[in-house]
């Protein structure tokens, strides 16, 4: 093969590879939250969950934030739509995939802005917009990076109350009834024997 033809072939191959790499999706990260729904007791206002991500840039700072609006919303802005006090910034790693404990809030945004994440039956304070679906968003490098961000929706599930109280409400009347019956039969037996 002539040298000129080899150069042309290599250039063509490089072009094909270049186009192929450009065609790869830009924001290929993922994030999951465990548990989700986030189970809380009636009075619980924060809960620790595990946020796990993949597909972020290697060895690059990670931003994990709690937001009221989805990144698919054209009006999404991280400064206005994510909590200023509730995010974490773990160090990145070589894999671009890791997990971290994230404290999610139930109630008004801890920074005092007029929105919050609530369970379905929660009553939001006056002037505070209630969101029953919030989003955990991850991105890398800087918090405003919308090229590699991803999100997962989170909701709250409120448990019915403390577990030990339910059996006691059943056990106590049963035990009381049994004790009364036992006493009744004991007295009756003593009376018969006399």
């Amino acid at each position, binding site marked *: 093969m002539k040298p000129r033809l080899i150069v042309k072939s290599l250039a063509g191959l490089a072009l094909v590879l270049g186009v192929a790499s450009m065609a790869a999706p830009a924001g290929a990260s993922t994030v999951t939250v465990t548990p989700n729904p986030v189970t809380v007791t009636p009075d619980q206002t924060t809960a620790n969950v595990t946020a796990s991500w993949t597909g972020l840039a290697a*060895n690059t700072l990670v*931003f994990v934030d709690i937001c009221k609006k989805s990144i698919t919303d054209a009006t999404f*802005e991280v*400064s206005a739509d994510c909590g200023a006090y509730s995010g974490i910034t773990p160090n990145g790693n070589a894999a671009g995939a890791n997990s971290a404990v994230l404290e999610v809030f139930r109630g008004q945004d801890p920074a005092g802005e007029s929105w919050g994440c609530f369970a379905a039956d929660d009553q939001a304070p006056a002037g505070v917009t209630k969101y029953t679906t919030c989003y955990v968003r991850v991105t890398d490098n800087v*918090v*405003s990076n919308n090229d590699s961000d991803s999100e997962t929706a989170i909701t709250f599930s409120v448990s019915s109350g403390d577990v030990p109280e339910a059996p006691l409400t059943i056990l106590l009347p049963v035990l009381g009834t049994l004790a009364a019956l036992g006493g009744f039969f004991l007295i009756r037996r003593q009376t018969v024997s006399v």
Partner: protein
Amino acid sequence: MKLKSLIGAALVAGTLLSGTAMTSMVSASPEPSGWDDNNDKATGSGSDTTYAFMQRAELYMNQAQGCDTDNATPAAAPAAYTLGDCLTGAAQSSVNVNGNWDHDIFTSTYPNGSSAGVKALINGQVDYARSSRGPKSSGESAANFWGFAKDGLIMVTWGNRPAGNLTTAEIKGIYNCSITDWSQIAGQAAGTIEPVGMNASSGTKATFDSYLGFDANSGACKKSLSNGTYPFENDLKQVINDSVINQNNGITWMSRAEYVAWSYKRQTGAAWTVDSKSATAGTIANNSYPITRFIYHVTKKTDATAAAASAEVTGADGGAGGAVRELTEFMCKPAASHGLNDFTGKTNYVELTSVYSVTGFIRVPASEQTNGICKLVPGP
């Protein structure tokens, strides 16, 4: 008479004379202010840490709505130059007092350190200062320090040194040279620790010195750059590129805000936890992270001050001092007191919120605010 009072009086008179429906305009009667109808120019200097924030805050203050301006072609004589100043009397129809009435102009000069900036302010060489530390115990009694944000200091390593946890005692030991090898830190491979110092004028250094209880540059083991100077604060490029500092054994500290906001300054640095706490916005806000600080806009007391618990800033009523008074109020007033930005349609409170986000700082938590949304610390 103060400008806003004049405007209010004019509106009242107009209402009485015309009998027309100007009630809503009169109800917006302006407060006493630092405005004087002129485009005053005010300049600030000081901290590197707060430079990016103040540049952006100044942009929104410079863009903020205000008076109707004199747009007539200027006369040849400079003394008659009034282009851009506020129209007066009946020619003035604006009642917008929630922004920058005079369209005063604010500019931050290139960073030269908190202490130098505060000194220049007290000397009368600049109109306001940026500081990443609070007031000194003496020599700064003429200044008011308006804390408008919070930050933390993080411990940072780079190269192949994996980030872990340092206790406060270990950090002190590293900088007083009683801990000299990384093997003395849990989970770390051996190597001589190289604690890097910082330029003495830095507020970030002053905060770290306060945390340590001694001068971070005083230990015999501390490192400076190959040219013999200490690096400028919050910029790892200098230490990472330096030939004298071992890339896998060096350690320094920097602003958490700058670390998260500027990847070019952060380079390959990795943040350590301190006393098992990560430096997050939340742990800085609630002070559970061990090294937190406020970030300050500094004024002369005569230019801008406030009564206890008041969001109303008082002081100079004109000139550059009056402009500084209004800039201070702009930065410290709550959301409801802000007007719209003509370029974005958002309120300037929302725009300032984006500045906090972009620059990595957080607003002062409600529990620590003393005046509006700021924490005022007068120089003692």
